[in-house]
């Protein structure tokens, strides 16, 4: 089995700070665990390819290290109470460590505190939480993802005198990751020639995003870019193709899924930052085992973000950023 | 054997806790009108429900033209030529009259329903029945009597050999009854066997050939109508003698408590009358003459379009129902299903709601509420076995008793009873009339609104006659006679036409 590491990563110092320094590190994972730990992973949901990728990461890493893993999912971003219950259930069922992809930035702090208080380390993956009781973080912030996406546009059009119009579809209103990405995107384009239309919030169901895109195209036919969730990008590519607008309007996603990756390969989607959710998942499991075994670990780390576009899509190792096509969700590793 | 079109032997039906029908034999000859007679809850509806395919017997056999049959559902019975007018209407309230009448056998043109033909045929049926009705009207908007007529019209059907009518006239006046009887006579002449359930002896005496009497689910006997007089029938039915149905009611010191001045509402023209305590005021009229609407407007159940109502000198017009009730008015609705009872609860619970309201205390002491509902049930002669039963599972007449019992749950002095005895057997009716007597003699005002003419004629001290939405006559006790009242009904009809 090929090891995924060493991997180009970024460490944040001081750890857990929102505006800390990032520095490049090379991430090395353990060869194997010394004991068959029980690790419990809590996800917001497992209904799309993104979380499937994280699932792939944690599952593969657990298998590689030889630890037991159990995955629970709350069923959606409105199910905060359910996620809390599930984390409690994790502990009740004897987890040695808990990895959480949080539904809410602040709302899990108390459970995390409780769990950490029992000596069970909690690792924050993908979404981020504000708790200071967290043992480690393996993530890149969605703020950064949104920011990178905006930055891509700003860089591309730095010389333009004409304003560039962007339709912006951040995702379901009120979800933590959505608001973070929104903030990052807006911060990046501020003061540039990029003009962002009124943000169109909406569920990440494809039909919802599709009609949002249709309406924006209708209201602003002169729009230059459509940027938003991966679902938006996937939905928009077919629409633009059918209307023959592929050449005129660029599509950007602020995170990566298999569909977006294919779209970039086929030239329908222009670019998307890769946060390598598979690696984030792997890092979180590795961190958990290191903590349990009292080994050294990097407290706050994440894979290096890079923007995947038509130009570099050929050079990227797909398996690092996306699950293999044949992967089906796995909820427990014995 | 085949002299009978329909023959049932050893029919038994068990409901949880009740033997609704116990080893009953019954036979129907072609071309005869066979009346089923018995107290409320005797098992009449249960018996015909099995003949009609609506219910399956626990044991026993049914033969149609000598062949043993077992109907899976009403449709199967209809295919065999048995049609039934049920006591609990089989009408769909949200469909139109025409759609109801032709439900499941709509005339078609090609694959599609021919609505125009359906309406035309409906109109024809009602012309025969001499009952004006709009074929397109939604059934829910019709009065109970009109619904009854629609139900009867449903049985108008080409291929039938047995017609079953379960209390078809409970909400009707003589005029409609006459038309119905003409229809029955015609069917008879065609050899159709008719099973007819009714509590009105005088009425069915006119058409019946034989009578079968049931009591407590058991067969008491079958006799030729010619051999049966009222007293024998009632005695067979109740097991005791019922000497007088209508009690003598003393009129004690009548004093006006309510004066109604120019009260009107859509369907009722301005009406003036007085309500006095210590007497029974009757309101008579044909179906649809507006007698119900008049008292409903008085109670505030339907909006009033004009006029004033004074209660003990105070203007109470326009008050909502609950304020009227608080002032001592009580209204007994003619439609126990739609606005009288909560069918999904027990008789006790239904009465308890009113008892608790009547007491007005925030907390409920169930032991004493129970005691009171028991007392009320005793008063209306509701069998103890029925009291903890869901209202939907007691027979129609017993439901009416529960409804009547509600009168006594809240303190009142003006009792407006709209069709108080629909579907109640003779024995119980006598008891209810005695209660009306007691109410009046104890100084309360009682208004009896009824389509049952003998009832209002016999009970009233004063009688208002209504026709076409107007009060056309007001009679004192000694002036009241059937002739005069009927003349008033028809005088007005002629004027109108």
């Amino acid at each position, binding site marked *: 089995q090929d090891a995924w590491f060493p991997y180009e990563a970024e460490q944040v110092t001081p750890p857990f700070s929102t505006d800390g320094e990032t520095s490049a590190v090379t991430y090395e994972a353990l060869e194997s665990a010394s004991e068959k730990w029980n690790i419990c992973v809590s996800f917001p949901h497992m*209904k799309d390819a993104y979380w499937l990728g994280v699932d792939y990461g944690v599952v593969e890493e657990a298998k590689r290290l030889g630890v037991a893993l159990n995955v629970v999912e709350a069923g959606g971003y409105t199910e905060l109470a359910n996620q809390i219950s599930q984390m409690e259930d994790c502990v009740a069922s004897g987890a040695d460590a808990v990895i959480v992809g949080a539904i809410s930035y602040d709302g899990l702090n108390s459970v995390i505190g409780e769990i950490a208080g029992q000596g069970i380390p909690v690792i924050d993956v993908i979404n981020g939480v504000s708790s200071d009781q967290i043992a480690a973080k393996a993530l890149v912030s969605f703020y950064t993802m949104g920011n990178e996406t905006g930055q891509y546009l700003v860089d591309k059009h730095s010389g333009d005198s004409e304003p560039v119009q962007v339709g912006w579809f951040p995702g379901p209103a009120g979800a933590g990751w959505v608001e973070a990405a929104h903030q990052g995107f807006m911060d990046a384009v501020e003061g540039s020639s990029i003009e962002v239309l009124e943000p*169109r919030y909406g569920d990440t169901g494809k039909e919802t995003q599709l009609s949002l895109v249709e309406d924006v195209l209708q209201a602003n036919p002169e729009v230059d870019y459509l940027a938003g969730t991966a679902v938006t990008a996937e939905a928009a590519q077919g629409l633009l193709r059918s209307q023959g607008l592929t050449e005129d309007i660029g599509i950007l996603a602020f995170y990566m899924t298999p569909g977006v990756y294919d779209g970039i390969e086929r030239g329908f989607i222009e670019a998307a930052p890769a946060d390598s959710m598979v690696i984030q998942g792997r890092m979180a499991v590795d961190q958990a085992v290191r903590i349990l075994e009292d080994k050294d670990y990097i407290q706050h780390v994440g894979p290096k973000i890079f923007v995947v576009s038509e130009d570099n899509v050929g050079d990227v190792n797909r398996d690092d950023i996306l699950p293999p096509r044949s992967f089906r969700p796995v909820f427990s590793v014995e | 054997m085949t002299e009978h079109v329909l023959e049932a032997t050893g029919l038994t039906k068990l409901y949880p806790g009740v033997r609704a029908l116990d080893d009953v034999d019954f036979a129907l000859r072609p071309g005869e009108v066979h009346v089923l007679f018995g107290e409320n809850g005797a098992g009449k509806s249960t018996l015909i429900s099995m003949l009609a395919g609506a219910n399956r017997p626990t044991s026993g056999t049914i033969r149609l033209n000598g062949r043993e049959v077992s109907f899976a559902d009403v449709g199967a019975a209809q295919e065999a030529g048995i049609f039934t007018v049920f006591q609990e209407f089989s009408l769909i309230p949200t469909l139109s009259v025409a759609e109801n009448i032709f439900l499941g056998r709509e005339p078609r043109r090609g694959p599609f329903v021919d609505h125009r033909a359906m309406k035309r045929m409906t109109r024809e049926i009602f012309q025969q029945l001499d009952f004006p009705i709009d074929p397109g009207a939604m059934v829910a908007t019709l009065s109970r009597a009109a619904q009854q007529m629609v139900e009867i019209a449903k049985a108008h059907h080409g291929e039938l050999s047995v017609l079953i009518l379960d209390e078809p006239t409970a909400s009707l006046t003589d005029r409609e009854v006459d038309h119905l009887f003409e229809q029955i006579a015609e069917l008879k002449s065609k050899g159709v066997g008719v099973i007819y359930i009714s509590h009105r002896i005088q009425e069915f005496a006119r058409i019946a050939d034989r009578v079968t009497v049931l009591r407590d689910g058991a067969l008491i006997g079958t006799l030729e109508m010619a051999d049966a007089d009222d007293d024998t029938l009632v005695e067979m039915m109740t097991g005791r003698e019922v000497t007088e149905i209508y009690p003598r009611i003393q009129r004690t010191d009548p004093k006006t408590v309510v004066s109604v001045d120019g009260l009107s509402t859509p369907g009722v023209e301005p009406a003036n009358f007085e309500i006095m305590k210590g007497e029974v005021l009757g309101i008579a009229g044909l179906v649809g003459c507006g007698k119900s609407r008049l008292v409903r407007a008085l109670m505030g159940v339907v909006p009033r379009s004009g006029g004033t109502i004074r209660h003990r000198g105070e203007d109470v017009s326009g008050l909502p129902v609950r304020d009227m009730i608080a002032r001592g008015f009580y209204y007994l609705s003619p439609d126990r299903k739609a606005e009288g009872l909560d069918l999904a609860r027990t008789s006790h619970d239904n009465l308890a709601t009113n008892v608790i309201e009547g007491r007005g205390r925030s907390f409920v002491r169930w032991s004493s509420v129970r005691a009171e509902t028991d007392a009320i049930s005793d008063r209306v002669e509701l069998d103890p076995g029925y009291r903890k039963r869901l209202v939907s599972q007691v027979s129609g007449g017993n439901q009416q008793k529960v409804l009547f019992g509600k009168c006594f749950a809240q303190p009142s002095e003006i009792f407006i009873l709209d069709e108080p005895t629909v579907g109640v057997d003779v024995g119980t009716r006598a008891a209810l009339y005695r209660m009306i007597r007691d109410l009046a003699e104890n100084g309360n005002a009682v208004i009896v609104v009824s389509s049952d003419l003998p009832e209002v004629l016999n009970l009233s001290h004063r009688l208002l006659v209504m026709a076409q939405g107007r009060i056309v006559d007001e009679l004192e006790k000694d002036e009241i006679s059937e002739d005069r009242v009927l003349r008033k009904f028809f005088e007005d009809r002629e004027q109108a036409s």
Partner: protein
Amino acid sequence: MTRTTTNQASGGLQDFARRTFIRLGVLPVFLIVAVVVFSLLSSKFLTGQNLINVARQSVYLVLVALGQMLALISGGFDLSVGTAIAVTSVVSALTMVWASGVFPEMLWFAITIGILAGFGAALLIGIVNGIGVSYFQVSPFIMTLGVSSVGGGLALFMTGGVPVSGLPFDFGNVFGFGRLFGVPVPVLVAIVCIVLMWIFMSRTRLGTQIYAVGGNIRAAELSAINTRRTLMIAYALCALLASLTGVLLTARVESGEANLGGSIALESIAACVIAGVSLRGGIGRVENVVLGAFFIVLVQNGMNLAQVSSYMQMVLLGSLLILAVIFDQVRYRMMMQAR
């Protein structure tokens, strides 16, 4: 009577408006108001292209609402329409991908059996609902909610949440984006369905029987109607209409998704209720339901075009739904008075 007539004579224009309102109902009035308002707010609203847009977007809700109407009229609910859509999408996509792999030369054959497989899966859902409601007398709420949960789990199971991609291009090109005589194919499909449903509900025995069962199931039984069969048919047709929506949506998004149809169950019930369908059963008209669903989509489109913020859209849409029903009550009372 005479008084009313004189009343009506006076008033002129106002009275005309009043009578139109009473005759046509609230929805046409609301629709007209909405069109006027949105045309003022956005110059793009009343363009031919946008109207086609709205027509196409409304197809999905209209179809599902028509199915939902059947369930509601029969006296029940169908909370599983969203799941029927998702299951159809996943099953038809998986079948299509598989079949186009096996018979790469016969793409239309693959597309056809894919669609049929989707219909079949949804039909199964409908039949299970129907059996539960009619034979086991399970409350339609729990029955369809339970089936929805089961079906959703299975759909996710089949795909693992990953969209099924690689559908034949023709499928999307025809059913998703195709046009016939300049009219989008989904719109044509919807029109055909509307007409068929209208005939079904108002011109066939079965339609009347569905009304009857919902109006009073006991009375329907006593009127010799096979109530079980009728309920089965209502739920099966409802699932099939949802399934058709699933096929059209799959073509539109060009992938099989277990996530389709998330909130459509409530939305379709809302469309029916503002169109005057009674939740107690027995009442409802095809043409109004179409208007109800269209109204909801039109308002959403208009608000998007007028750049109303997403939060505000929730507030406005909620208020409009309530208002529509309040006005309907007012109309009902006016109708009662006018008689």
